[in-house]
């Protein structure tokens, strides 16, 4: 009979080996799922994980990777800071939407003025929108001890109705011949998030994601606030004695994650999405939760995890068009990845022992 035994110290090997192990297990389980759906599992796995990087259309698809990874990394880093401190902001999707709406509103308000200051102001407005939306659960948590998980999640639904109102009402394109959706930013150069280097898919969102990853790494490893975040998560009581103010930490972590999610929303709506529409948001705010855990809540790990998750998006779309794999299958695949990750993670803190005889 196998039994679990707590390790004296967490295993360094499994700390790094967990994500690859989870990916391999997910490929196996996903392969079984794809086979059950009547697809050739090897072909599907190859289409998702190999073709976007090395296949026939890789010259185009490689660029798509950063386009998808950028917002995921940006959001996941913010979430990871909070998760580390035991603050569960799971409403990033709502903050992402509100960032896009705030930023886009600023840009559309001054249409068709041309000025180099328009885009930077929109960026600030986007971050502000996400920040405001995250401050609601943060302040309710610190003032009234309200559960931030439930409030932030409820606000996603509120943000979605505001988005519906924006795209059919106050941000609707007056020249759109009655179709829902705002003006398209691709035809408004001053407010457009253009590619800086097209073959890599690099736009300002990608730059922001990579810079944020480095800054967050420095924050966590070299800065007092980062130390407090890690301490509060690992030993809340010790953190109190150390003088960590829990309320300030909640406001800080929620604020950062909200602002980053808002930024991601703004870069997406002015770039790849192009316009505010009812469904411009594609669930990045929720997928970023998986990315944060897959990256072991470590900013540099999150960059890798973001690219891997982007691969499943890009490859999944390929598999959808070439092999007729339903889009929802990718969602299941991503969900499985998180399950396996959480399951394999037991090996970091515990080891299996053969129990000899009756204990």
């Amino acid at each position: 009979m196998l039994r679990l035994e707590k390790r004296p110290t967490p295993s360094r090997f499994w700390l790094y080996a967990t994500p690859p192990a989870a990916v391999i297990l997910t490929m196996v389980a996903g392969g079984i799922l794809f086979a059950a759906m009547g697809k050739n599992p090897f072909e599907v796995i190859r289409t998702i994980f190999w073709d976007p990087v090395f296949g026939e259309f890789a010259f185009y698809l490689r660029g798509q990777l950063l386009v998808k990874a950028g917002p995921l990394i940006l959001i996941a880093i913010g979430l990871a800071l909070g998760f580390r401190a035991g603050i569960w902001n799971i409403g990033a999707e709502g903050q992402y939407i509100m960032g896009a709406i705030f930023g886009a509103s600023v840009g559309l308000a001054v249409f068709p003025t041309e000025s180099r200051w328009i885009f930077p102001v929109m960026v600030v407005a986007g971050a502000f929108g996400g920040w405001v939306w995250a401050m609601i659960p943060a302040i309710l948590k610190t003032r009234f001890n309200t559960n931030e998980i439930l409030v932030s999640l409820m606000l996603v639904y509120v943000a979605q109705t505001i988005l519906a109102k924006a795209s059919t009402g106050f941000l609707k394109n007056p020249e759109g011949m009655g179709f829902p959706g705002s003006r398209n930013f691709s035809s408004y150069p001053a407010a457009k998030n253009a590619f800086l280097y097209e073959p890599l898919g690099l736009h300002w969102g990608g730059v922001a994601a990579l810079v944020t990853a480095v800054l967050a790494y420095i924050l966590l490893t070299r800065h007092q606030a980062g130390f407090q975040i890690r301490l509060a998560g690992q030993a809340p009581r010790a953190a109190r004695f150390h003088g960590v103010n829990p309320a300030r930490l909640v406001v800080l972590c929620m604020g950062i994650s909200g602002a980053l999610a808002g930024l991601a929303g703004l870069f997406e709506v002015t770039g790849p999405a192009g316009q505010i529409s009812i469904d411009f948001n594609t669930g990045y705010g929720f997928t970023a939760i998986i990315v944060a855990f897959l990256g072991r809540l470590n900013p540099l790990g999150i960059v890798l995890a973001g690219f891997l998750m982007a691969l499943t998006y890009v490859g999944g779309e390929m598999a959808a068009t070439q092999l007729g794999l339903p889009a929802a299958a990718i969602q299941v695949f991503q969900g499985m990845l998180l399950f396996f990750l959480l399951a394999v993670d037991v090996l970091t803190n515990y080891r299996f022992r053969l129990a000899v005889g009756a204990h």
Partner: protein
Amino acid sequence: MDLGGINPVILIATLMASAVPILLAALGETVVERAGVLNLGVEGMMIFGALGGFIVAVHSGSPVLGFIGGAVCGALLSLIFAALTQVFLANQVATGLALTLFGLGVSSLGGQGYNGIKPPPTGKLFPQALTDLPVVGPIVFGHDWVVYFSIAMTAVLWWVLKSTRVGLIIRAVGESHEAAHALGYKVNRIRLACIAFGGAMAGMGGAYVSLARVPQWVDGITAGAGWIALAIVVFASWKPWRVLIGAYLFGGITVLQLNLQVAGSAIPVEYLSMAPYLITILVLVIMSAGRKASGAPAALGQNFHASR
């Protein structure tokens, strides 16, 4: 008697039915949380139950089998959560979120091809003559069996948690798993059973959405009902009768909001449809403000590993 185009008798009768999904799910989650487990996967289990129940009902032609199928599906999905948190000792918050994401994905995948089909109808329990009585007719007699089942479950769970040995063990495990373990109770097995029960209740609640409330299969059909159920458990301070009150209050707001939309209220539709979520937040604030002890089980969200 009409108030602004809304008949209060009809309103009460409708809210009782519209509250059933969140009532069932919240009752299940109450038991889970009283055993010290925080399962944030309610939304995932509900929607999986909604799909499973729908498929079973459509193929068997029996709505009763559909509800059982929904409960079984919800329980099956919850076993993934149980295995991860009770055997592999994974973080409960993260695993619950994973369960919701996974449940939404699986239902979206499995539900393809079931759009636009009508499930077999769930009829009213009492004969027409009783339903036609004024006032008490629609409110007391005008429902299908699941509405009565949900009320009965409230009473049963109240009684079980309050005055039975099983309830005492569940609460002991949720308040102090170390003490329960020292007394010889198998903490993780008891929790596993509670998680499965919670999954079954959530799945049945989900099945009520797809079989009775909507009634058809639509992607994302539960629309956050699982999260609202979680909020209602907090609102109810983990007590079954208060869960019923919370669910009915919430059901009332939802119905009222829909009625106002139909009645052509001056408030735009979008703002009305965000009302349920805003009011949930408001209620959470009121319930959690100014209280040191929330009444939450002491071991809520903590995993247990028997080192001895």
